[in-house]
């Protein structure tokens, strides 16, 4: 016999979308259950970007792949707080031109920067967003300097971070404690398997500690992230424009070797970003621990050989854009969905062009050597040596990675291409809403978590006003 629970509102998935939604529902006085497949671990249960963190907090322990030419390996959090626990919290509001495009093509109502501003304000009041006090660490500053030398503007991205306490403003530090204080129930280690509508209520079939669990709710929000949300809906027979349009921000990387220390133990996270070329591509800096340098340099032994002696002189940088159009499909009997991705040639070429821009910026920043992180490509000693690079991205050997996934169930009034209406209500299904990155109508170009939170905030208030109808 399955255990049974009855609540006003159930929210499936406790990432930024689910946590914001659940906190608002609980605060509005509804008996709210927040269900999370992953474990409930404190923010500092493991070191950030460590092997232990990947094993304990990432979905598939970091081994998720969208199959294509080239494939994209993508990362998602799988723990209370979802991606917000494992990410760097780099923060931007959705660019106005992105919202404008979504409103036009997808016919999303009331999604202007002005209409969304109060929701950003409200989220930022609860999860603090701040710029780095003082000067950025050298690894970061170098990117800014290199860009400036070439006449490209850069900026220092703010973060969801409390610099006074040194703690990231993840969901487990912000919205989830607020949800609990408002009387909400969080159930970790519980995976939703299927949802069904019976007797004007939603029934969620879940499993917890290998025991079946049935949950009944008047209102239901699915916020399992941009891959698992369409997988759950499709398993439950809901398929209209669900899982057909998953997008990424795939990255290509480069490692620079400088003549002096840029990557000192204890430095804060790097924050410089070159946004002058967006939306074609954007450039930024990554955490550059020896392990992450080694991982990025898997196909480049010449630069990798420097890690043991000179990792303090090395910095890892990336370029990303919105290449890749993917589908999420459930395989019979398999727990994990299958994701396949196709690329448009011009998008991949833009990404490769972005890599060339990044290499130029790193040489302009004074790098002694720069290694594009693609197997078999040479380590370069000067910008002139870039002529030796292949004319276009070597698709066979290229390995792309992404930490941003979205747009698998886009919202809007244009029913031909959307899965939900402008407020996250799934078309043609009563009382079912999506509340996560799946709703975005395409790449956010900027780091997406701020957009996910603000849109979840907007849609949750809309739902509460209508009592989840």
């Amino acid at each position, binding site marked *: 016999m399955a255990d049974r629970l009855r609540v006003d509102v159930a929210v499936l998935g406790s990432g930024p979308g689910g946590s914001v939604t659940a906190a608002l529902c609980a605060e509005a006085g509804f008996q709210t259950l927040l269900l999370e497949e992953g474990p409930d671990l404190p923010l500092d249960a493991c070191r950030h970007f460590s092997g232990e963190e990947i094993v304990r907090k990432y979905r598939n322990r970091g081994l998720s792949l969208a199959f294509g030419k080239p494939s994209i390996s993508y990362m998602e959090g799988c723990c209370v707080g979802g991606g917000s626990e494992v990410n760097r919290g780099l923060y931007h509001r959705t660019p106005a031109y992105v919202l404008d495009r979504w409103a036009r093509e997808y016919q999303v109502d009331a999604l202007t920067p002005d209409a969304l501003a109060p929701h950003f304000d409200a989220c930022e009041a609860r999860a603090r967003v701040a710029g780095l006090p003082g000067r950025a660490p050298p690894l970061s500053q170098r990117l800014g300097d290199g860009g400036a030398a070439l006449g490209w503007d850069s900026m220092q991205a703010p973060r969801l971070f409390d610099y006074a306490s040194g703690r990231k403003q993840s969901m487990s530090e912000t919205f989830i404690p607020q949800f609990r204080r408002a009387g909400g129930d969080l159930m970790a280690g519980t995976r939703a398997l299927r949802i069904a509508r019976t007797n004007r209520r939603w029934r969620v079939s879940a499993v917890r500690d290998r025991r079946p669990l049935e949950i009944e709710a008047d209102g239901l929000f699915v916020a399992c992230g941009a891959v698992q949300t369409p997988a759950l809906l499709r398993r439950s027979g809901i398929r209209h424009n669900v899982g057909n349009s998953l997008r990424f921000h795939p990255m290509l990387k480069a490692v620079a070797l400088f003549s002096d220390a840029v990557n000192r133990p204890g430095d804060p996270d790097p924050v410089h970003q070159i946004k002058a070329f967006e939306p074609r591509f954007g450039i930024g800096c990554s955490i550059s621990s020896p392990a992450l340098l080694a991982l990025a340099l898997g196909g480049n032994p010449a630069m990798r050989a420097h890690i043991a002696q000179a990792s303090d002189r090395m910095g890892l940088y990336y370029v990303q854009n919105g290449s890749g159009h993917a589908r999420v499909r459930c395989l019979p009997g398999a727990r*994990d969905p299958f994701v396949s991705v196709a690329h448009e040639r011009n998008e991949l070429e833009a990404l490769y062009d972005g890599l060339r821009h990044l290499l130029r910026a790193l040489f302009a920043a004074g790098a002694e050597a720069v290694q594009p992180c693609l197997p078999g490509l040479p380590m370069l000693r000067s910008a002139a040596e870039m002529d030796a690079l292949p004319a276009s991205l070597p698709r066979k050997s290229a390995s792309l990675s992404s930490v941003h996934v979205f747009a698998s169930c886009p919202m809007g009034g244009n029913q031909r291409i959307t899965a939900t209406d402008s407020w996250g209500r799934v078309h043609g299904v009563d009382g079912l809403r999506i509340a996560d990155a799946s709703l975005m109508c395409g790449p956010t170009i900027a780091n997406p978590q701020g957009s996910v939170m603000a849109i979840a905030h907007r849609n949750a208030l809309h739902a509460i006003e209508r009592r989840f109808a």
Partner: protein
Amino acid sequence: MMPDARSAIRALVEAVARRERGDAAQPDVALRFVTDSLGGMPGYLRPPLHLATLAFDAWPIVSRGRPFHRLRHEERLRQIDAWERSVLGPCRMLMTLYVSLTLFGLWPDDQDEKSGQQENRRYG
């Protein structure tokens, strides 16, 4: 001598560890990370990965009379190198997976002061 996936993975991790870090290598730490990671991969990928690993281990049986995990260090490195450069995509993918996980696992967190969740407060 039969091919064996677990022995092949151990041998591969040890070979990469020695190639990369010589005496400083901690192959057991890397091996734990590799096996922990593989334990979480999507279920539908496990059978093909297992078969590909067996094929990798069996590869030198014809030419050398022994599976990969029984080869000497230099011979192991030559096979890894050959598979990394193979014209066959699945061979390259297999090496990318194992070598990347090993490389990451070779730099354990206790050597890496930058990876603390609470960042140092040197904001100047």
